[in-house]
């Protein structure tokens, strides 16, 4: 089903390929007509179909070049191509490239671990591709059925007045102010669901900026100026070093510490400048409070910063 209602297309996928098509028309020379692929599997299936290959055949290398050429083209087009999509494409391109490279090697020698891993990667790719193919076929069926069904119009007429009159009188207890509150809540943007980013592969222990600021504050407030090196001497991991540095920046913004560094890359000395009492890490700038306020959120914050 190449004809896709572009008007209703959700952002991302359709836009990227729409751009791609127009560019192809302009530049020419690129043999693959950039159809409206909905993802890497779709593209892969498209290329396999074009070469009349069976998905189950070991001829994927034939389409690898084209696949990678296509990715490169998409990359050149740049904008409108979402990061997560790009990475999916690249993961598959990398797998294909591996497989293609493996085919250039003498056959029949599956001995070392790398070869086994490659075979597993191939099986994984095949399996995912087959699964996707199945759902794509079912999607076509859904599309046809929905289209056929749209030919029928259900009877859903308004209730005849004498029946409507039978309905019990509506109970309405909302004052205009309460109603406005309902409206404000209903009109609040709900689109706060963050895209699901997998963090399973991250194993950093939870480190909180406030917690580290508390430690730093305690050491500086009741002692002499300390070098950054000394302040992080007991840090058990790089993550703690990073978080302590961020905490210092926060404290600097709150004007409770000052820095001294005689020359670039030389020793950084930190000095307490705040009043001796009345400071606590709870007073850190609001920006961090909003990020770190909920107890559950706090744990993941340092990780996020560490990632950046």
């Amino acid at each position, binding site marked *: 089903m190449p004809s896709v209602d572009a008007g209703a297309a959700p952002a991302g996928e359709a836009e990227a390929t729409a751009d791609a098509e127009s560019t192809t028309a302009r530049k020419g020379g690129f043999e693959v007509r950039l159809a409206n692929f909905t993802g890497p599997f779709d593209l892969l299936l498209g290329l396999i179909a074009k070469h009349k290959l069976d998905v189950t055949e070991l001829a994927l290398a034939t389409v690898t070049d084209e696949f990678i050429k296509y990715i490169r083209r998409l990359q050149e087009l740049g904008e409108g191509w979402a990061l997560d999509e790009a990475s999916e494409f690249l993961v598959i391109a990398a797998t294909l490239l591996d497989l293609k490279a493996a085919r250039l090697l003498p056959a029949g020698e599956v001995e070392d671990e790398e070869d086994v891993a490659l075979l597993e990667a191939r099986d994984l790719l095949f399996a995912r591709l087959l699964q996707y193919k199945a759902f794509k076929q079912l999607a076509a069926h859904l599309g046809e059925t929905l289209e056929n069904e749209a030919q029928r119009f259900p009877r859903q*007429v308004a209730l005849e007045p004498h029946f409507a009159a039978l309905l019990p009188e509506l109970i309405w207890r909302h004052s205009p102010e309460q109603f406005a509150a309902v409206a*404000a809540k209903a009109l609040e943007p709900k689109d706060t669901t963050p895209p699901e980013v997998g963090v399973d592969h991250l194993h950093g222990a939870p480190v909180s900026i406030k917690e580290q600021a508390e430690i730093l504050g305690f050491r500086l407030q009741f002692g002499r100026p300390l070098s950054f090196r000394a302040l992080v001497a007991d840090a058990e991991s790089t993550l703690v070093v990073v978080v302590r540095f961020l905490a210092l920046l926060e404290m600097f913004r709150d004007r409770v510490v000052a820095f001294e560094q005689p020359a670039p890359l030389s020793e950084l000395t930190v000095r307490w400048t705040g009043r001796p009492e009345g400071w606590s890490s709870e007073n850190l700038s609001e920006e961090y409070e909003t990020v770190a306020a909920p107890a559950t959120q706090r744990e993941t914050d340092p990780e996020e910063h560490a990632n950046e």
Partner: protein
Amino acid sequence: MSDYEDAVAGLAALGERPGGARAALEAVLMVIDQPASSEELAAGLGLTVAVVDELLAGLQRDYNGYTVNAPGTDADGSPADAGASSAPRGFELRNVAGGWRIYSRPEFSDVVGKFVLDGQTARLTQAALETMAVIAYRQPVSRARVSAIRGVNVDSVVRTLVQRGLVEEAGTDPESGSLLYRSTSYFLERMGIASLEELPPLSPHLPGLEGIEEFFDAERM
């Protein structure tokens, strides 16, 4: 007589379909919400008003249970009457205020009334209340837009609000062609306010409204 030729052409096209022009007319009558005049029906079906009037009369008799041979049936043997039955149906075709619509037969109003009342509550659901709020503050607004704002499909809820007289149709969107809805004077009455201007402003609850507005426009379907 181009009208006549058009009508014949229309009849021919419809005649090839199962049930012919009569069934086409029935199909329309069965799903339209607002009564339609014979002129409107004729225009939509590509038939002359005379032909539509005849078909309408045939359907009316048919639903009322006259048989093909009963008195009052046209003798011209038009295909419209070929399928007429002998027992009245549970519905009837009525011409009300210049428009035709299919209604349930009054003999069964007690049964139908009982069915309609079953499961009806006197209170609006939270979903209905929120939808009402969005319509009141964003009117005139299409269902698609309310759906986008609320993040769920609101078709049946809007129908309930219309049925309850709190919301009414307000023309169509010139761009998308979709129906627009607005609040009714009954809504104002229930809120105890004289006009929409008396609705409390949203700004205190909702800072940065402008940005949100854009956001929803971009997301529009």
